[in-house]
């Protein structure tokens, strides 16, 4: 069993997208989750999908900083996976009310609600980026996601100087914002 400090380290590693932390959590928890899912009407592949999604939930939580683990990490992950799996079964009309619980569980409804919202926003932004087309997409990704500097971008995209690249970037940004917000407000 892990100590609280060890688990805290794992979580901060996760928030920093640290490969070792991810790997440790996988190694220590995946088998339990898989056996739960297979016992409840699922296939091994379902387990991989669910576990990945649960890891994303955990990542968001860890990153938010406000996360105080009030139970063991294992219990928490198990609770999330269980909830996600129930939801999936329900969606496919395969809900089994006698779903078996082999462990203690904690309430994770709030987390999942937040996750759903974040996931939607993520997809919305991905969609908006796709919609603005090239070169805007690459230009914005280079600056805001790959965090490249303006001079770097100017030479990579063939702009005469950083200022030109910057002007172009803002034009693209305004377009992206427009698309994003029109969808975002629509969604509300």
């Amino acid at each position, binding site marked *: 069993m892990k100590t609280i400090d060890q688990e805290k380290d794992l979580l901060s590693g996760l928030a920093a*997208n640290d*490969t070792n932390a*991810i*790997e440790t959590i*996988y*190694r220590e928890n*995946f*088998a339990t989750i*898989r*056996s739960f899912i*297979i*016992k409840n*009407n699922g*296939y*091994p592949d379902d387990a*991989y999908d669910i576990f*990945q999604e649960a*890891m*994303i939930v955990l*990542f968001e939580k860890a*990153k938010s900083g406000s996360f105080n683990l009030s139970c063991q990490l294992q219990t928490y992950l198990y609770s999330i996976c269980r909830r996600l799996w129930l939801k999936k079964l329900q969606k496919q*009309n*395969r*809900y*089994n009310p*006698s779903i078996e619980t082999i462990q203690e569980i904690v309430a994770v409804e709030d987390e999942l609600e937040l996750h759903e919202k*974040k996931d939607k*926003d*993520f997809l919305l*932004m*991905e969609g908006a*980026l796709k919609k603005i087309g090239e070169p805007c997409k690459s230009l914005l990704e280079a600056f*805001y*996601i790959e965090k490249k500097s303006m001079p770097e971008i100017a030479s990579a995209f063939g702009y005469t100087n950083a200022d030109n690249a*910057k*002007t172009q970037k*803002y034009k693209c*940004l*305004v377009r992206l*914002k427009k698309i*994003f*917000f*029109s*969808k975002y407000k*629509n969604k509300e």
Partner: protein
Amino acid sequence: MDENLLLDAIERYRNGQMNDAEKLFFEELQKNNPDIKQVAAEHSFFLDELENLSDQRAFRQNLKEVESRLRKEGAFSENEEQPKSKVAYLWNRYRRTIAVAAAIAGVISFSTATVISRYSENKKVAVITPLVDNKLNQFEHKLNQIEHKLNDATAIPAKPKFEANFRATGFLVDGSGYIITNAHVVQNAKNIIVENKKGDQFAALPIYSNTLTDLAILKITDTAFRKVSGLPYTFPKTTAELAEPIFTLGYPREEVVYGEGYLSAKSGYYGDTASYQISISVNPGNSGGPVIDKDGEVIGIISSKETNADGVVFAIKSKNIYTALKEIKKEKDISIKLPTVNSLKDLDRVKQIKKLEDFVYKVKGN
């Protein structure tokens, strides 16, 4: 202020790239200009979302890599997990096929019963019908037994029965799932279900409702709905002529009902120029049905009838649909494409109806 400069300032402020004097100035600026404050708030939010995307992408990528590496390594060997028993595994896999087989068996026994009743000399029907039921029950019983034996009594739950308290008519204006009906039909509805001729039911949501024109547009949200093509009718923008023969399809009963009549006035109730007066026999439930001329053009949508007069019915002119679509485009950025090819022209009425039926839906709800 130049917008680019403003955005630049917001980003630098957010990233902590401003010196103290700049920072102070910028904060002061925001305090005194609500507009700038608003832009700054919006832009910060947007940048948060972008950052979120960036983090998520990186994390998801990392996650996938770790997972596939561990899988390759055999960190979670697949064999240690014995999925229950093999039978249970197969049962899960073929459950659907078995259900289909059961359904077919049901149909066969039913049709056998029909044949028997037809050829039996006397009234054996009464005896035969319960027999059919029994057989179905036996089959179900067997299925249940198998399920119990497998210690996996998961009955696929039937869709909860939907209790509608109103019924009206609607029809597709765009094959990707947009249905037009009256605003008064869906006004107070909490749940809306549309049903096609075959009896397939789909959940739908109103995306537009205008009580003034009494038009509403529903979007089928059900994932079971498949896009349909070949809407056979078109929508003229011009006004139809007096005395033009017209007909309608609708759901005043559970079954689709055909009715015909003629255009009696170019304006509706109290001279309302947005609608026609038509003479046709309609009943509650016909609301939202198409009014179609002999060439298969939808000239209007049935909306109401005068209570104290016979055969005085009002239909909303179809050009109002164009206005509605424009408003939807503007407000929701949804483009609905009306059909442009009319395949009803020059067909006789029976054939026209055959083609039409598939696109006219029952609208139910509570």
